[in-house]
């Protein structure tokens, strides 16, 4: 536990987390501080490109790891399976109806790429390298959870005929900008390797943490606004779920990582992926397929409860567990 407290203190005192806390505090205090939409979009493009590129370079540098396929399969299984765990927990812990419970559950099978990026920063800050292909695993885990959520809704005949899944929605999910950019940058990094990295290092490595600070400030503002405006729908049972579910997801993630035999950094990142909840791909899909589900519930839960928990206390907790399990 000492390890956890030390890690938690170091994490809470880092510029990344303090920037996020500033955003939440400013929003809750009704400050007029805001990040323009175009700036937030530009920063997310930068972060996705940088993290994807660096992952590709790492794979090019170390060669293709046999664990890649196992981790991809494990990630897909986690993404498809975790919504069912979340759904059961939601039914036990909250009074949500089936449609809303399934929509929320879908978010918890998918991933938060910003939590993943913050996880890589924590791993690197503590001296733990990770498998470069974890970026590809993150991209693969975006979509299967959506299918599980729609199946849960359709099975009960909920939401006026169940979720609607058409070819257009499939294309939007599988080819959404985040996935295309992440996988594309990963492939560019894979092809160009260390020489390619040397050419653009001053752009994608050195400013990375500074940009991430401003991005997390923005995330804090959005999270704080969500909490402020949706206080009425977020009841104690939902708040408890928003904290318990990532811990359960991380526990399943660490078991999968141990079975695969990932490094300490890789174990941390698989735990982070299993613990995090989507607030980009899944909400957009749910708005199209299941408009009856209340976005105030799932967006506030994933962005206002689970994201802050993972960022502040989850990451050090998962790192402490990953270190213990891998004997680091």
């Amino acid at each position, binding site marked *: 536990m000492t390890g956890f407290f030390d890690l938690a203190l170091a994490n809470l005192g880092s510029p990344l987390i303090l920037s996020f806390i500033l955003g939440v505090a400013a929003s809750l205090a009704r400050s007029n501080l805001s990040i323009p939409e175009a700036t*937030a979009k530009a920063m997310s493009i930068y972060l996705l490109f940088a993290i994807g590129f660096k992952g590709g370079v790492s794979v090019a540098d170390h060669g293709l790891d046999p664990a890649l396929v196992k981790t991809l399969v494990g990630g897909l299984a986690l993404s498809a399976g975790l919504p069912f765990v979340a759904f059961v927990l939601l039914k036990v812990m909250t009074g949500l109806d089936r449609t809303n419970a399934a929509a929320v559950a879908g978010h918890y099978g998918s991933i938060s790429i910003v939590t993943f990026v913050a996880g890589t920063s924590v791993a690197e800050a503590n001296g733990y390298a990770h498998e470069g292909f974890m970026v590809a695993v993150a991209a693969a885990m975006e979509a299967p959870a959506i299918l599980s959520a729609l199946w849960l809704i359709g099975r009960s005949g909920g939401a006026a005929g169940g979720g609607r899944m058409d070819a257009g929605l499939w294309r939007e999910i599988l080819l959404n900008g985040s996935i295309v950019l992440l996988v594309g940058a990963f492939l560019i990094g894979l092809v160009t390797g260390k020489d390619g990295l040397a050419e653009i290092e001053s752009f994608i490595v050195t400013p990375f943490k500074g940009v991430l600070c401003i991005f997390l400030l923005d995330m804090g503002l*959005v999270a704080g606004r969500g909490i402020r*405006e949706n206080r009425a729908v977020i009841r104690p049972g939902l708040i408890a779920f928003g904290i318990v579910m990532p811990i359960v997801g991380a526990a399943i993630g660490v078991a999968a990582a141990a079975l695969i035999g990932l490094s300490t950094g890789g174990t941390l990142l698989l735990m982070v992926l299993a613990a995090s909840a989507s607030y980009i791909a899944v909400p*957009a*899909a749910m*708005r199209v397929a299941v408009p009856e589900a209340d976005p105030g519930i799932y*967006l506030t839960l994933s962005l206002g409860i689970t994201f802050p928990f993972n960022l502040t206390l989850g990451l050090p907790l998962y790192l402490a567990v990953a270190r213990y399990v891998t004997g680091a």
Partner: protein
Amino acid sequence: MPQMHEAKRVSFIIETPMQSRLTAAIEEAGVTGYSIFPVLGGSGASGRWSREGQVGRAGGMVQVVCIIRPDRLEALLEHTFRLVERHIGVVSVTDCQVLRAERF
């Protein structure tokens, strides 16, 4: 004063993820002219929304406006209502006048 012609201005304020589906439905109804406007923010029966800092499109809204000949209104509403009836948003129709009727 130039000749003015009666027309209908149909405005859809709808969730951003539905934008491409709505414009496809508008085109299916035979209406080829429309404009898309960003909605900075607002409040309605389903809560508040804002474009500021949005990293995903799910929480945002857009406004799609088309100006049509009055005889096209029924077909347009039929095609689009099936799409928008389950979603958050507002559909409104107002009378207006246009200068060049042949364009609508």
